[in-house]
């Protein structure tokens, strides 16, 4: 399949707000992207606006504050999606098509039960939570992510294991938590299933501390995938660093300002894997 034939759905509701740059990230790499409203998949809109999930090859949940996140980050979007589209979504994931959740999108995937989704495609209740940062504040800052996946995740197939990327974070609720009596069991399981994709590290890569892990996440986890490797959720924003000149310290570097930024590999990887398998 040609990249231009890959159809990407960027899905939004009110309060979603990183859809333009997420759309642009896929578009600049040559895919056909459409940003649509959840209503277009679920309710009575005019036939011209009506869309079907199965027509797309990739589904992306962008960042933002869906419905204000007044209840809990991602909870409202997830509940609406689950009540109307659980079956379609499950089918989409089971067919091996990739689903990406960035920031609020990760929160939505967790609330949907699509991540970590241990033992199932989609758990009935969330198995984890992305909870308020330890600092109790919104944190907008550069973060460094070490790629820890051993090869399962479709979104990082072109990133060597152990490579450190600068991908910025901007969130108030990114603190990954498991039920307190299951923490070590879940961690082991994630590790065993190769579901851990990114961990926060310090720029000098030795110990990890605030603010380089901006939220207090368990085991400094920044992003995880499902057992199939086709659903990825991460708090930091790869779509914000498609070019070098979007990095915070690019004026100090000798590299070409409009060369690839560290986030590009995530989008490139998934487009390539779809190209190969569909």
């Amino acid at each position, binding site marked *: 399949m040609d990249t231009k034939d890959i159809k990407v759905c960027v899905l939004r509701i009110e309060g979603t707000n990183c859809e333009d740059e997420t759309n642009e990230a896929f578009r600049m790499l040559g895919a056909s992207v459409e940003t649509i409203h959840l209503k277009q998949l679920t309710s009575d809109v005019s036939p011209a606006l009506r869309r079907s999930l199965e027509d797309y090859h990739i589904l992306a949940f962008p960042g933002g504050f869906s419905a204000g996140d007044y209840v*809990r980050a991602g909870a409202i979007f997830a509940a609406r999606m689950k009540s109307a589209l659980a079956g379609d979504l499950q089918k989409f994931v089971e067919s091996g098509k990739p689903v990406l959740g960035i920031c609020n999108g990760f929160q939505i995937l967790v609330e949907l039960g699509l991540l970590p989704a241990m033992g199932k495609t989609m758990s009935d209740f969330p198995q984890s939570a992305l909870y308020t940062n330890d600092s109790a504040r919104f944190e907008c800052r550069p973060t460094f992510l070490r790629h820890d996946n051993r090869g399962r995740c479709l979104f990082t197939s072109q990133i060597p294991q152990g490579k450190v990327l600068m991908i910025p974070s901007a969130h108030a609720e990114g603190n990954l938590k498991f039920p307190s009596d299951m923490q070590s069991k879940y961690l082991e399981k994630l590790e065993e299933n190769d579901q851990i994709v990114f961990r926060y590290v310090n720029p000098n890569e030795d110990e990890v501390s605030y603010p380089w892990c901006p939220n207090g996440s368990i085991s400094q986890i920044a992003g995880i995938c499902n057992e199939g490797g086709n659903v990825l959720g991460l708090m930091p924003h790869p779509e914000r660093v498609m070019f070098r000149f979007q990095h915070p310290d690019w004026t100090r570097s000798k590299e070409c300002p409009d060369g690839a930024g560290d986030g590009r590999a995530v989008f490139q990887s998934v487009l390539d894997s779809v190209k190969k398998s569909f």
Partner: protein
Amino acid sequence: MPPTVLIMVNAEIRIELKKGVADPEGANTKKALELLGFKGILGVKTVKVFSMELDMSAEEALAACEEMSRKLLANPVIQSYKIELK
């Protein structure tokens, strides 16, 4: 047309963090209060309450609130909920 009767129940759903889950907002509030000179604060926890007016019987209200909590208002990994009719 029969007159519509409005039965009104006042329900409160109280969402609390489970034991053992740290409460950064509570901790921050404690710090801010201490900076203002308050002494003797051993701990601050934040609780969120959704106070609802429902047009249904008490029994239905309990069931509805239960379902609302499960479907949307609480995440069982970190939060517990309590429903109270007033």
